[in-house]
């Protein structure tokens, strides 16, 4: 029998972070957003960091969309007292500015986390935090099933188009509620069936075994995580300084 060399995992490319670092950084940003709300440079820096992470991770389009909306809100925030708008419109504009300024930093960070984190890295790093299997197995399954549902949903959409089941047709107006039923029921049935087969396959490969799991995911504290740590300390100090001043 032929012997093959051991597998050498590919080195992680780009600016990769340990999933734990990402989560902790999220905690930090979310908390700071609650605490610091009247210092525009600070808010801009908070938004800039996840923006950079998105760019580095290759989500340029999303980064640009979020980024430009944020910049727009910053500009609007400065000129809002110059222009006089009708009361109601003015109210809505101020509200939107508030939402964009205060929530986009965490939204950008969230998008970065979802896009950059691989299921096995996440599960392995949470195992190091001693998070229970009872939470980690379902989370791994969620990672697996969200794309499954997209895939299944795509086929069902195609099947609906072939049958002429669509918004706006004559059949649709007869009973608009049924379109939801047609959309959802085959999808759920399909996913349940896949789930049953998946359970069988996962069990035969020892999922839920009481032995302590090992893993080959490449996680751990790296130079990149250290950079984020330094930035975090800087942000905290800055926030503290702002607090003292005001």
């Amino acid at each position, binding site marked *: 029998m032929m012997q093959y060399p051991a597998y050498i995992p590919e080195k992680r490319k780009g600016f990769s972070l340990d999933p734990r670092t990402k989560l902790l950084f999220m905690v930090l940003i979310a908390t700071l957003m609650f605490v610091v709300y009247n210092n525009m440079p600070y808010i801009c820096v908070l938004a800039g960091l996840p923006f950079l992470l998105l760019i580095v991770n290759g989500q340029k389009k999303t980064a640009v969309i979020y980024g430009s909306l944020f910049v727009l809100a910053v500009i609007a925030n400065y000129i809002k007292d110059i222009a006089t708008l009708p009361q109601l419109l003015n109210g809505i504009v*101020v509200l939107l500015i508030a939402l964009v300024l205060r929530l986009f930093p965490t939204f950008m960070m969230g998008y970065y986390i979802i896009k950059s984190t691989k299921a096995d890295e996440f599960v392995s790093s949470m195992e190091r935090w001693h998070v229970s299997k009872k939470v980690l*197995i*379902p*989370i791994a399954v969620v990672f697996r099933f969200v794309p499954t549902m997209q895939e299944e949903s795509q086929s069902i959409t195609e099947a609906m188009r072939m049958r002429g089941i669509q918004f706006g047709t004559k059949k649709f107006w007869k009973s608009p509620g049924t379109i939801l039923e047609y959309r959802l029921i085959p999808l*759920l049935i399909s996913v349940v069936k896949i789930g049953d087969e998946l359970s069988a396959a996962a069990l035969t490969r020892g*999922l839920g075994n009481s032995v302590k799991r090992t893993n080959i995911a490449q996680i751990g504290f790296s130079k990149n995580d250290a950079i984020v740590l330094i930035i975090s300390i800087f942000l905290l100090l800055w926030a503290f300084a702002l607090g003292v001043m005001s």
Partner: protein
Amino acid sequence: MEKTNKLNSKDLINIGIYTAMYLVVFFVVGMMNAVPILYPISLFFVPIVTGIPFMLFATKVKKSGMVFIMALILGLFWFALGYTWTPLVSYIVAGILAEIFFKVAKFQNFKLIVMGYCVFSWGAIGCCMPMWVMTDTYMAHIEEEMGSQYVTQLMQYMPWWMGIAGLGIIFIGGLIGAALGKKMLKKHFKRAGIA
């Protein structure tokens, strides 16, 4: 197979599958969230539609902890997605309350399970809370800067009792959703042999 009340791998996989369903359905219906003015409407519709996957899930729940774990994962997910830590808190609380209802229902009593679902759906309020809290603090800041006429005006759209009204809206949506879910169970899932 020995019967225990401990969660086995099959249960855990089921939690994952139904959490994924709940999330996807939530997301699709919650698209309306893109426009903040529509919050009250999506608060109403989300629990109606998620009632279908949840009531299907409820037929698989026969052990303690399943509903709570689902809530916990949802909270974690919204946290990771950037909705700050308020949904994490709200889903943990909602999950514990729902778990109590399921326990008292012995996983069978339909009325109590419906209550459990409505309470579970309350977790979603945490996704809106950052908007309220954030805009609120921002308003306070504007008030300092530019006088109170802005703020009183805005408060008409974001009154403090919106939170409680939100819970009420979710509860009614939840009742309808549970009824819809039960109807679908009878109409499709039972006859298709999967519930």
